[in-house]
């Protein structure tokens, strides 16, 4: 409209408009980097320009980015990566032998001995072999075939790739994908983008966000009325909820998937982030194989891992992989084609993944430092998980399930009716209203629960437990104060 006014041309609309664009893209939302973050960036800009606010910095507790919150990288990993980046450093005596040995091995596998060369689309072969060995070791010797390993640009890339393969059909035959509520919004975004049908199954907040098979059954049979359910996604340890599934639960899910002929997608990126007493990470693959050939020969599955979380926190490297189980060979050929379009995953990320699956061993020079650093990160996270749960549960209007694993807390907030009404007035979802106010008043950026999904009439927010302990204590304190003020204001 104004375009024509500016150019004085006769009515000439754009080629790409809201009407002509892919309607699926309009349905894509990704709360973790959504409107509240844009507001946070705006506030940071204002602070930089000298604006006076009740706080001097914005604390971005919205995103699972450990380094952003001050967590230090693992020295050994960075040494090897530096050697890979600038191989002349292999002559530098300040680098330990075990780091040099790993760097040489990676470089040898790269075209022209450079991490700047493209790799095979599926990922560098010797790294896939190392990943397979890691999986075997982790899963008590159950074999892993390197041909079933696909390196990727973070786990997200692999997740979307598998969904692309799975989503098809029209109308009532359109693929339905079961995802947990609450879920990590990459899933809902990818499903919207692909035009798949999202099938919600609710985690049980009253029972530490556990997964019930009855609920899975309910969701599935309801979905069968209007789509063709083919996939079941599960995040373990959970995001945003932090629950670590019991072995029994995992078995039940596998049994359910077999009975109902569903493809299992097991998002296990937080597999090292397990804190609570009595909780343990059980890989879906391990449980599957321990259930015997009736299951291990038939259930089709993909499990995902990443270099962004756990104790490494190397989000910026975009490293990850998926292992596919029982995939039809012809489908695998299509999968290779699919991953080839973007050529290959970032080679530094592949190199980093190689180190994650092949860390210093007890007899190696870097072992002691490595273990010290790894333990420090994981125990700090465990402590912060405990602290968060403890403090939030002392705040009236906030209830918090134990943070058994992962990096987040997803507390439930009780909002006064007046606040809910005010939110509606402003055209905001109530928990977005709450989070926006918190951001404006305290400079703390969280993600409203509505971004992850929640039961109707309940409100939550997701906060990371990543800030350093002292800062986290301050954040928890400020949220408590805000909660009390907010409740008071709208009482």
């Amino acid at each position, binding site marked *: 409209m104004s375009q024509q006014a500016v150019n004085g041309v006769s009515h000439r609309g*754009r080629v790409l408009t809201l009407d002509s664009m892919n309607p699926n893209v309009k349905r*894509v939302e990704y709360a973790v980097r959504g409107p509240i973050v844009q507001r946070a960036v705006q506030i940071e800009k204002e602070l930089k320009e000298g604006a006076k606010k009740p706080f001097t910095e914005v604390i971005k507790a919205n995103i699972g980015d*450990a380094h952003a919150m001050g967590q230090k990288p693992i020295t050994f990993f960075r040494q090897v*990566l*530096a050697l890979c980046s*600038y191989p002349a450093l292999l002559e530098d005596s300040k680098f330990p032998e075990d780091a040099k040995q790993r760097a040489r091995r990676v470089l040898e596998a790269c075209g022209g001995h450079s991490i700047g060369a493209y790799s095979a689309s599926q990922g560098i072969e010797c790294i896939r072999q190392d990943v397979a060995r890691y999986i075997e070791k982790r899963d008590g010797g159950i074999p892993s075939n390197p041909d079933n390993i696909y390196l990727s*640009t973070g786990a997200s890339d692999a997740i979307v790739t598998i969904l692309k393969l799975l989503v098809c059909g029209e109308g009532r035959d359109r693929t339905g994908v079961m995802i947990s509520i609450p879920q990590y919004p990459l899933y809902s975004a990818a499903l919207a*983008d692909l035009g798949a049908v999202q099938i919600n199954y609710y985690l049980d907040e009253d029972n530490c966000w556990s997964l019930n098979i009855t609920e899975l059954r309910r969701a599935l049979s309801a979905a069968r009325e209007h789509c063709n359910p083919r996939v079941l996604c599960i995040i373990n340890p959970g995001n945003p909820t932090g629950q670590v599934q019991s072995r029994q639960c995992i078995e039940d899910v596998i049994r359910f998937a077999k009975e109902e002929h569903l493809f299992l997608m097991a998002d296990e990126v937080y597999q090292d982030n397990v804190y609570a007493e009595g909780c343990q990470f059980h890989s879906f693959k391990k449980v599957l194989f321990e259930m015997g050939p009736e299951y291990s020969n038939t259930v089709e599955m993909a499990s995902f891992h990443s270099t962004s979380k756990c104790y490494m926190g190397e989000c910026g490297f975009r490293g990850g992989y998926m292992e596919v189980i029982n995939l039809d060979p012809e489908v695998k050929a299509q999968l290779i084609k699919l991953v080839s*379009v973007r050529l290959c995953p*970032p080679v530094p990320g592949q190199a980093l993944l190689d180190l994650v699956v092949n860390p210093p061993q007890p007899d190696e020079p870097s072992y002691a430092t490595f273990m010290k650093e790894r333990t420090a990160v994981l125990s700090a996270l465990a402590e912060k998980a405990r602290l968060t749960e403890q403090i939030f549960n002392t705040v009236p209007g906030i209830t918090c399930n134990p943070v058994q694993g992962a990096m987040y807390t997803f507390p439930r907030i009780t909002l006064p009716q007046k606040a809910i009404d005010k939110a509606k007035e402003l055209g905001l979802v109530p928990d977005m209203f709450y989070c926006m106010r918190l951001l404006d008043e305290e400079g703390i950026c969280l993600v409203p629960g509505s971004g992850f999904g929640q039961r109707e009439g309940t409100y939550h927010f997701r906060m990371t437990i990543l800030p350093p302990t002292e800062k986290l204590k301050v954040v928890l304190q400020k949220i408590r104060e805000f909660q009390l003020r907010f409740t008071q204001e709208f009482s």
Partner: protein
Amino acid sequence: MAARGLDLILHRAQVKLCDKLQGVRRPYKEVIDVFQGDLHRAGMKPLTFVRQVLAACVYPPLINSSNLPLDVRQRAQEELGRCVGGSVGSYSATPGIPEIIHSISEFIKRRDGGIPSHPENIYISPGSQWSISNILNVLVNREASPRTGVLIPVPCHNKTVLSITQLGAVAVPYYLSEEQGWALQVEELQRAHESAKGVCNPVALYVINPGNPAGYVQSQKSVLEVIRFAWEKRLFLLVDEVKKLLSSMQAYFKNQMHLYKGTYGCLHVALQLYQDCVYGENCEFVSYKRAVSEMGPPFSGTVELASFHSVSKGFSGECGLRAGYVELVNLDPAVMKYIHTLFSKDACSPVLGQIALNLMTDPPKPGDPSYLLYKQEIEQIRTVLVHSVKKVHEVVNSLPGFSCPPIEGGLFAFPRLHLTPKAIQKAKELGLQPDTFYCTRLLEEGGVFTGPGWEYGQKEGTYHIRFCIAVPQDVMEELLRRLSSFHMTFMKDFS
């Protein structure tokens, strides 16, 4: 148009070959791999400055190492200062690290003679194909009937075509004119657009300049014609300018020339620095954005354009780092919001790649400790490319049954094979495309890994091969020696 897939045939042949090479007598020790536009794989070295900075960013204790030049250490410190939490391991903002985006916009502005580039229109992604996929995703309406169409050149590198078909759109081919040095003729665009009637609804026109696989550089006249055509037919312009970094170096050296003249008054040195980096004598790369802007209204305000670039090509050749960017021009602001969300679900681009991109757009300057080495390395690469281009043209055109127009730009040679009926028949018997047959034989007997023209599209009844020319001098000589020898034998066997 023939359905195209991956060249699994050749890949399998290569794998088999590598296994076989252990112990089987062959007239060569190593395969020369020029299948992809991968400088490092072909033997070219990375730029020292870039790698030193990246190493220091990855392992910050190196910032205090006296083994690294001062400007490297300072630069690493600057780059880390822009990373959240001072680490390359943290996520960046969705479009990329803001200062790097800003730097890229300044770079584009310099390249385009001062025409402003707006940072909010730039997105960094893990390689150019990633952003091409994202933009195509926004353009292609899967529910539309008739289906969305995208005009693509023939020949064309196959990744984009795969993206188009995977999204459920129709790729509508327009043929570049091989006889006219792969010129893009508007009449052919017209014909292609007409051919889409009743088949699909063309909404976009994909152009590759400089070309891939064919090494042409569009003339300014051609660029203007294409823009006008896109405007008339209401087509969204998708311009793949990935290979243009070479000519950006031209602009870089132009700038340096002025500095040199000012600082040292050494004109001959300055002239040495500024030479035509795009190889053709009368070639100069013209960016579509610049052309659109200089055309003035109504084009400048209305032609919707996405231009794609990458750190994989040009002098750095850092394919493995995965960094590219797209600049969006004249897009509807409401649509831009959705594009932002689409990019955001992929988190962000690898940070090392972003930094490499920044180092390329803002390299060492005269007077900096690393400048001389940097300049020397760039010159070496440029010399190699100019030499390769000449040699390939010379050798290929001297062989019977082989021809090649001058390579004006880009990183590949795409010579034409004039295969005999006998050879074509043999290929048919083996169930292979004739040029795939040639390439497979060339790989097995000659030890040179090239790509068959069939993969990229070509006029029916014509055959080509594609190979990367950014290869060290001695390797190129060996390549051409093996190619000539193999070709003569092959032509004789099938005469």
